[in-house]
C-alpha cells in the first residue's frame, strides 16, 4: 500500500469511527418495550414541542394531556351539545344564594390512593392563586371571596356580587385542573413562585407524577409521548375504563407527513389540518371524519381578519365595511378547504348552542353583509377612496397611496392560501393588497405589537360556555397602544366605550339571565356591525380524522357525543369521552390480521377491512402475541421499566460502525484495485 492510499483510507476510517462513536454515545438511558400496536391509539396534532413540561400551572408550556389525562377538571363541557358532564364533581353546581355556589364531589382519588377532597378544590381555586399572585388565573380572586369546605365531598364558592365574573368562573369550572394539595402545598412552601418554572411538579420524571386522570405518562422521547392507562383510575366505577391501553402521541410538523401516516394507518387519530379530505375520505374508506360529507368537521374557533384600526384607511369604518363586501369568503372555503369549514357570520359567533342563542339574527339580516364587490366599490367610491394618481389602485382621499399587507405565518398553508385569495379579492375592487408570509415568530411579534395592516388569527376564539370568552379576547378594552405588546386578542386596538361597559356588564350577569344577556349581546353586536372592527371569515374546524383500522367508536354526526380534540387543554371538550368510547378492532373480532390497501380508484368504495390481500400491501399488522397483550392487566401502577444497560447502546453503535466501516473498506479495496 502506498503512502497516499494509506492516508486516504485512514482518514476515511477516522471519519467513520468518529461518526460511529457519536452513534454509540447517543443519549437516552433506558428502554421500554414498545407497546403493542393494537392496544395503542396513535394520536397527532397537539404536540408541538418535546414532551418535557407537565406543569399544569403553566398550561401554555404543558404537554397535551397534562390537563385532562393526568390532572382532571371538575366538569367536562361538550360544546357541540352544550352539555356539562360532571367529572370530579358529581352534580351540576348549585346556587345556594346569589353569592354562593355549592359543588358536590364524586368518590375520586389520586393515583397514590389519597382521596380527592374539597380541600384539593379549595387549594386549586383559592389557596394557589392567593399564594402565587402571578398565576394565570389569579384574577379569580377579584370575585372569589372564599371557598368553604363543609365536608370532604362538598365545596362552597363564595363570591363578591359586584365584581363577579360569571362566564369566566364557569369557564374555569371545566378548564382548571384540580391539583393534589398534599403534593403541591409542601413544594409551594419550599419554592414559592418558582413552582411555575418547574417542568414537573412533585416528581423527578413524568412517569412519577401523581395525578388523578385515566392515563399516566408511560415514557417520553424527544418527539413522542406515551401514556399508559391508569387501571386503578377512580372513574372506572363511574365511566368504565377507556379502550386503548396506550396512547402514543407523536410530534409531526407537516401536513404531508400527517397524510402519509394517516393513509398508511400509522396514525389513528389526527387533529391536523389535512388538505384534500374529501378526496382522501373517498379514496381511503377506513378514514372517519365527524360528518361524512361537507363540512366534515365541527367548528372549533373563528378565523378572524384583524385590521389595524389606527392606520388609514383602516381607521375608517366605511372602508372596513367595504372590505367585508369585497372579500369572497366562500371562495376561500371552496378553494382552500374544499368546503370543510363554514362561513362565519359577520360577528363571528360559532354555530354552537351556547353561542348561537346570543346571535342577533335580525340585526345581521338588517345589515345584510355579504360578498358583493359592486357594493364594496360603491362604498369605497362614496367614501372617497378612488384612484387619484392614476396607477390603477385606489388612494386615500388625501392622495396617499393605499398598499395593504395581509400577514399570516409562513407554513400555515391554508391561511397562506386564504390570504392570497383575500389579497386577490381586494385587488379586484381596486385596493392594492399583498399577502405576506413572515416567519411565525415575526408574525406573532407584529401581531402582539399591533404593527400590521391586516392579519388572520384565531387564537382565543375557541368554543366555550359563553360568547363572552370570545368577545373578551377579541375586544379587550385595555389593550395597550400600538407598539406595545398586547397579549389579548384586540390586535387591531379597537377602543369603544360602549363595548367596554357592555363587556363589564355581561361578565356580571349570571348565565341564567338569558334575556338580559341577549339584550347586552345585541347591543354589543350592533356596535360591531356598525364599526366592523374585524371581519370574521370562517369557522376553523375541529380538525379530526381517524382511521378504523385499529379502533372504532369515534364520535360522528351519528353519535355526536363530543368534540374529539386532543390539543392541549381541550381534552375536556370530548377527547376524554372519545377514549372511553374507543373499542379495539381486535376486541370486535373482525380479523386477527388485516391488510390496509387503499382503494386506488374512487369508484370502488369497497370496505377494505378486512381487505383482500392484494399484491400491494402497505402495512401488514399481525396481532401480536406479546406477553403484554395476553396478560390482561398489570394492575399495579406502571409496568416495570427495565433500564437497558448502557453497553447495549454502545454495542449497537459498534455494530453499525463496523458495518459502515466494512462498506468503506470494501470501497477502498475496490478503489485500490483500479
Amino acid at each position, binding site marked *: 500500500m502506498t503512502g497516499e492510499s494509506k492516508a486516504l483510507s485512514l482518514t476515511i476510517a477516522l471519519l467513520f469511527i468518529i461518526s460511529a462513536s457519536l452513534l454509540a454515545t*447517543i443519549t437516552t438511558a433506558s428502554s421500554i418495550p414498545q407497546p403493542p400496536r393494537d392496544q395503542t391509539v396513535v394520536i397527532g396534532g397537539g404536540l408541538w414541542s418535546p414532551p418535557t*413540561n407537565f406543569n399544569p400551572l403553566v398550561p401554555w408550556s404543558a404537554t397535551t394531556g397534562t390537563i385532562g389525562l393526568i390532572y382532571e377538571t371538575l366538569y367536562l363541557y361538550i360544546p357541540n351539545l352544550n352539555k356539562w358532564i360532571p367529572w370530579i364533581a358529581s352534580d351540576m353546581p348549585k346556587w345556594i344564594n346569589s353569592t354562593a355556589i355549592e359543588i358536590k364531589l364524586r368518590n375520586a382519588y389520586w393515583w397514590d390512593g389519597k382521596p380527592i377532597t374539597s380541600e384539593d378544590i379549595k387549594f386549586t381555586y383559592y389557596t394557589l392563586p392567593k399564594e402565587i399572585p402571578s398565576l394565570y388565573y389569579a384574577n379569580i380572586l377579584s370575585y372569589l371571596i372564599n371557598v368553604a369546605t363543609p365536608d370532604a365531598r362538598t365545596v362552597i364558592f363564595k363570591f363578591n356580587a359586584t365584581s363577579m365574573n360569571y362566564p369566566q368562573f364557569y369557564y374555569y369550572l371545566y378548564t382548571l385542573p384540580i391539583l393534589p394539595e398534599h403534593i403541591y402545598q409542601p413544594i409551594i412552601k419550599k419554592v414559592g413562585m418558582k413552582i411555575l418554572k418547574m417542568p414537573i411538579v412533585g416528581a423527578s420524571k413524568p412517569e412519577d407524577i401523581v395525578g388523578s386522570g385515566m392515563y399516566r405518562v408511560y415514557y417520553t*422521547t424527544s418527539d413522542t409521548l406515551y401514556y399508559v392507562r391508569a387501571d386503578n383510575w377512580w372513574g372506572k366505577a363511574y365511566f368504565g375504563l377507556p379502550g386503548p391501553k396506550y396512547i402514543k402521541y407523536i410530534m409531526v410538523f407537516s401536513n404531508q407527513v400527517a397524510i402519509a401516516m394517516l393513509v398508511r394507518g400509522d396514525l389513528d387519530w389526527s387533529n391536523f389540518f389535512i388538505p384534500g379530505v374529501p378526496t382522501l375520505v373517498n379514496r381511503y374508506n377506513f378514514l372517519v371524519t365527524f360528518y361524512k360529507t361537507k363540512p366534515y368537521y365541527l367548528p372549533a374557533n373563528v378565523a378572524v381578519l384583524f385590521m389595524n384600526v389606527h392606520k388609514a384607511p383602516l381607521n375608517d369604518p366605511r372602508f372596513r365595511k367595504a372590505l367585508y363586501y369585497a372579500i369572497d369568503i366562500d371562495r376561500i372555503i371552496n378553494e382552500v378547504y374544499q368546503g370543510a369549514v363554514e362561513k362565519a357570520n359577520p360577528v363571528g359567533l360559532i354555530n354552537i348552542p351556547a353561542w348561537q342563542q346570543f346571535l342577533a339574527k335580525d340585526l345581521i339580516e338588517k345589515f345584510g353583509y355579504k360578498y358583493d364587490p359592486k357594493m364594496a366599490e360603491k362604498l369605497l367610491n362614496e367614501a372617497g377612496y378612488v384612484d387619484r394618481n392614476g396607477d390603477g389602485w385606489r388612494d386615500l382621499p388625501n392622495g396617499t397611496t393605499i398598499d395593504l399587507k395581509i400577514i399570516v405565518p409562513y407554513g400555515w398553508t391554508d391561511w397562506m392560501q386564504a390570504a392570497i385569495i383575500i389579497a386577490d379579492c381586494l385587488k379586484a375592487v381596486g385596493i392594492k393588497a399583498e399577502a405576506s408570509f413572515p416567519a411565525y415568530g415575526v408574525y406573532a411579534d407584529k401581531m402582539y405589537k399591533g404593527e400590521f395592516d391586516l392579519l388572520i388569527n384565531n387564537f382565543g376564539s375557541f368554543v366555550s360556555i359563553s360568547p363572552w370568552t370570545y368577545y373578551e379576547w377579541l375586544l379587550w378594552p385595555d389593550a395597550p397602544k400600538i407598539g406595545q*405588546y398586547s397579549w389579548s386578542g384586540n390586535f387591531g386596538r379597537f377602543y369603544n366605550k360602549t363595548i367596554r361597559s357592555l363587556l363589564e356588564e355581561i361578565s356580571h350577569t349570571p348565565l341564567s339571565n338569558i334575556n338580559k344577556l341577549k339584550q347586552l349581546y345585541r347591543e354589543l353586536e350592533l356596535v360591531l356591525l356598525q364599526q366592523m372592527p374585524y371581519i370574521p371569515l370562517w369557522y376553523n374546524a375541529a380538525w379530526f380524522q381517524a382511521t378504523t383500522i385499529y379502533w372504532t367508536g369515534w364520535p360522528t354526526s351519528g353519535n355526536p357525543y363530543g368534540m374529539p380534540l386532543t390539543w392541549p387543554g381541550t381534552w375536556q371538550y370530548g377527547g376524554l369521552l372519545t377514549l372511553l368510547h374507543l373499542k379495539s378492532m381486535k376486541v370486535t373480532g373482525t380479523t386477527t390480521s388485516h391488510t390496509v390497501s387503499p382503494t386506488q380508484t374512487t369508484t370502488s368504495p369497497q370496505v377494505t377491512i378486512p381487505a383482500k390481500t392484494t399484491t400491494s400491501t402497505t402495512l401488514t399488522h399481525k396481532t401480536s402475541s406479546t406477553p403484554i397483550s395476553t396478560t390482561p392487566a398489570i394492575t399495579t401502577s406502571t409496568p416495570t421499566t427495565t433500564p437497558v444497560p448502557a453497553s447495549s*447502546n454502545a454495542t449497537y453503535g459498534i455494530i453499525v460502525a463496523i458495518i459502515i466501516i466494512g462498506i468503506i473498506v470494501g470501497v477502498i479495496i475496490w478503489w485500490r484495485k483500479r
Partner: protein
Amino acid sequence: MAMKMGFGEYVAKRIVLYIIVFFTAVSIAWIIPRFLGNPIAIIIARLGPGQAGAAIAASYFMQAFGLNKPLYEQYILFWIGLFHGDLGISVWLLGKPVSQIVFKALIHDLILMVPAIITSWFIGNYLGAIAAKYRSLDRILLPILYILTATPYFLLAMILQWTFSVQYKLFPAVIQTSILDRLFTNPSWPTFIAFIKEWTLPFLSLVIVSMGGWASGMRSLMIYELESNYSRFMEMMGLSSRLISSYAFRYALSPQITGLGIQLGTMVVGAIAVEYIFNYPGLGYFLFNAIINNDPFLLQGAILIIVLMVIAANFIVDLLYAALDPRIRLGVMG
C-alpha cells in the same frame, strides 16, 4: 520558479481561515434574528385566551431567555455559553436544550450524509472518468450527468417519493422519527430494517443529484489530464490507455477532493429540502423550522453545527488533499 510552502504553514493558513469563517458565520447567525421580532411572541401565541397570564408569561420568558439584557451582553453571554457547550433553550421546541437537539440532528445527518457523500463521490468520479475515456459513451452520459446536476434535490426527492412510495409501495414516504428514536433507544433488527427502508429514499435523492456534479466535474478534469504532458509522455512510451487514464484519474482526484469540502456545504443545504420532504430530523430540518418559527437559539445552534461540520469536513479534506498530493506534502507548490 517553485514556490515553497511548508505543510505546517499550509495547515496553519487553513486554520486561520476556518477560525475567521467560524466567527463570521456564527455571528451572522446570531445577529440576524435579533433584528426581527421577539421570539417570545411565539410562545405566548400558544397560550390562547387570558390577557393576565400572557403578560406574566411574557415577562417570565423574557427573563428566562435573557432577552432583557443589552445586546452586547447577550452576545458575550452567547459566546461564553458556547464554550461551555450551552447553546440555550429552543423556543420552538420549548424547553429542550438546543445542544441536545442539534447533537442528535448531527448524528442523524452523519448517518444520512456521510454515506451519501462518499457513495456519490465514488460513483460520480467513476462515471465521469468513464465518460472522459470513452467518447462514444460520452455522448449519452454527458447530457444525463448534466441533467442530474441541474436537478434540484427536492425535485428528485419528490420523483422518488412519488415513484417508490406512492406508485410502487416499496419504501415509506416519510421518516417516522419515532422509528429513528427507537433505533437508538431500543435497537432491534426489525427497527433497523424499517429504518433502512425509510433512509433509502433520502439517501438516494442526495446521492443521485450530487453524483451528477462529481461526474461532470471529473469528466472535464479527466479530459484535461488526458491531454497533459505526462499523459502524452506515457502514450509515447506505449503504455496502455488503462494505465494512463488511471494516472489521469489520480491527478483529477485532487481537485475533486478539494471540492468535497465545498460540496458538503451545498449538500447540507440540498439536504434541507430533502429532509423537509422526507421529514428526516437532520440539521437541515431543524434549521428550516428554526427559521420559520423564529427560534434564534435553535437557529444559532443549527448553524453552528452546520458550520462546524463544514469546517471539519473542509479541514479533513485539506489534510487528505495534502496527504494525497505530494506537491503539498513536500512543501512545493505551483
